[in-house]
């Protein structure tokens, strides 16, 4: 009897344990979404100091971005010779047919649609040896003026002869733009390169395209002991200003952009071999609601800053493809602003079930 009773108690205890074990609600196996509100892993950015850059880091020089600006104006010379018995006078009136400024300048580096920051000086085509600038310093004349001929002689026989010579005058300007290269140097420093100062390159008189000859500059020692030289040529800079309606509203939006496209080459100084070559572009944008209606004047400084920063981002991406630059997770903006799915956050320890 005792044994049976003990056996019963034991089995009852086991069954109670089973009941307790099975009474917990079956957990759903699929838990979609990680429920974390802030799943961004904030990996610490590599802190680069001059001390950390050791002897083995490669050194690189980044030149300021070169540019070449071309302008063309069409011009003609009109020569009127008046012959009479007593005098013979000729009046040479040089004319400049003022082409629209945005046609004369193939690019306006300081921005602005009709920038006349690049004045085209007229040289006397009729007299090439002459260096004196004649009174054609009126490049904004819209109509070709016919100057008054100062000669008029009262004589019986007079003949006048007019000769017109026309042609194009083109002018080229070479130089370096400073602001675009600095964020690129920053990107390279963050990837562990030693950045060497490049000597500024000054264009000479009558400079031709040999301004862009990088091998000559390497041989001349402009870049110190750099292992690589990254140099770029500014191909085009464009300033656009567009306005459009915003659907569903009574307003319009004016979008102003400054876009820059630069052609880069990365040269190994020892072998003068091009190790990387790409085109990178960057742009600064500004948007203004109802800007057209209210005569919005955009800030060129802000656009230039944004253009240079986005150009550096693009250069970093291109160099990553060629394994020159290490991807820095702190710079990866793609993890910002992720839209996470939200789950209920019930604190199970605070559950209270009230009795009847």
């Amino acid at each position, binding site marked *: 009897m005792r044994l049976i009773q003990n056996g019963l108690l034991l089995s009852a205890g086991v069954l109670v344990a089973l009941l307790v074990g099975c009474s917990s609600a079956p957990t759903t196996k699929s838990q*979609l*979404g990680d429920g974390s509100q802030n799943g961004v892993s904030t990996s610490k950015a590599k802190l680069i100091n001059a001390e950390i850059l050791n002897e083995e880091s490669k050194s690189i020089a980044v030149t300021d971005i070169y540019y070449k600006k071309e302008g063309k104006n069409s011009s003609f010379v009109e020569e009127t010779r008046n012959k009479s018995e007593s005098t013979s006078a000729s009046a040479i009136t040089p004319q400049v047919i003022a082409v629209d400024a945005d046609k004369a300048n193939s690019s306006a580096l300081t921005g602005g649609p009709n920038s006349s920051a690049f004045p085209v000086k007229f040289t006397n085509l009729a007299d090439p040896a002459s260096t004196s600038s004649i009174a054609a310093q009126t490049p904004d004349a819209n109509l070709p003026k016919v100057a008054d001929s100062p000669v008029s002689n009262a004589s019986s026989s007079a003949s006048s002869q007019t000769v017109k010579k026309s042609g194009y005058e083109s002018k080229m300007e070479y130089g370096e733009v400073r602001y675009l290269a600095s964020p690129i140097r920053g990107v390279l420093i963050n990837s562990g390169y030693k950045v060497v100062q490049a000597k500024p390159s000054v264009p000479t008189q009558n400079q031709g395209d040999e301004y862009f000859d990088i091998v000559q500059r390497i041989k001349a020692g402009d870049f110190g002991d750099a292992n690589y030289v990254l140099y770029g040529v500014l191909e085009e800079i464009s300033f656009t200003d567009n306005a459009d309606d*915003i*659907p*569903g*509203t*009574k*307003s319009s939006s004016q979008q102003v952009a400054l876009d820059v496209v630069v052609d880069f080459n990365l040269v190994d100084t020892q072998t003068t071999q091009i190790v990387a070559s790409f085109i990178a572009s960057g742009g600064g*944008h500004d*948007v*203004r*609601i*109802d800007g057209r209606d209210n005569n919005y004047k955009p800030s060129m400084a802000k656009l230039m800053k944004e253009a240079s920063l986005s150009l550096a981002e693009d250069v970093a991406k291109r160099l990553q493809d060629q394994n020159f630059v290490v991807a820095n997770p702190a710079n990866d903006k793609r993890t910002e*602003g*992720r*839209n*996470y*799915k*939200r*789950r*209920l956050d019930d604190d199970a320890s605070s559950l209270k079930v009230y009795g009847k």
Partner: protein
Amino acid sequence: MNARKVTLLAVLFSSSFLLACSGPQVRYGDAKGVETVNANYGSTDLQMIAESMTRSLLQSKPISASKDAPRVTLAEVKNKTSEYIDTTVITDKIRTQLLKSGQVRFAVSISEMQNQVDELKRQNQTGLYKSSTISKTGNMQGAQYRIEGSIASIVKTNKDVKDVYYVFNLNLIDNESGLIEWADEKEIRKTATR
């Protein structure tokens, strides 16, 4: 005798009060209850449509299979019936239920843009706000999908019966590729006998 009179008077008074109060009354009904006043479009139809579309959307691939909550916006639901139906109420209900589920993010629709633009203009362009505390123009998030649909009806009447059949179609369209990622429909039939 007096007691009897008193009780009789009491009964008379109470019955007259009851009669007086049996006129028009106001009571709160059940907002979720089935409504069968007539065969036109009613609250139960609205609730059934919104609920079945929401639940079906939650199970659809773009929403259930993506790790992040997808961004959706509402586009137009056309009313192709002959009745007056406010279709934005249906889409607002769907949007509310989806937002409460936490699985979808919604972007303001075209009809709500005026308020958004006015607020952005106020913060960015008046110069009155501290620049570190403003919401900047140019940072709105665009929607990946949009929801649009239509409701149509077939009404047939004869001398005894009016039969109304509604079909509500809803599509989830990818804004970039133009593909329809999900579509569902809900059919409702109501019959009124005279």
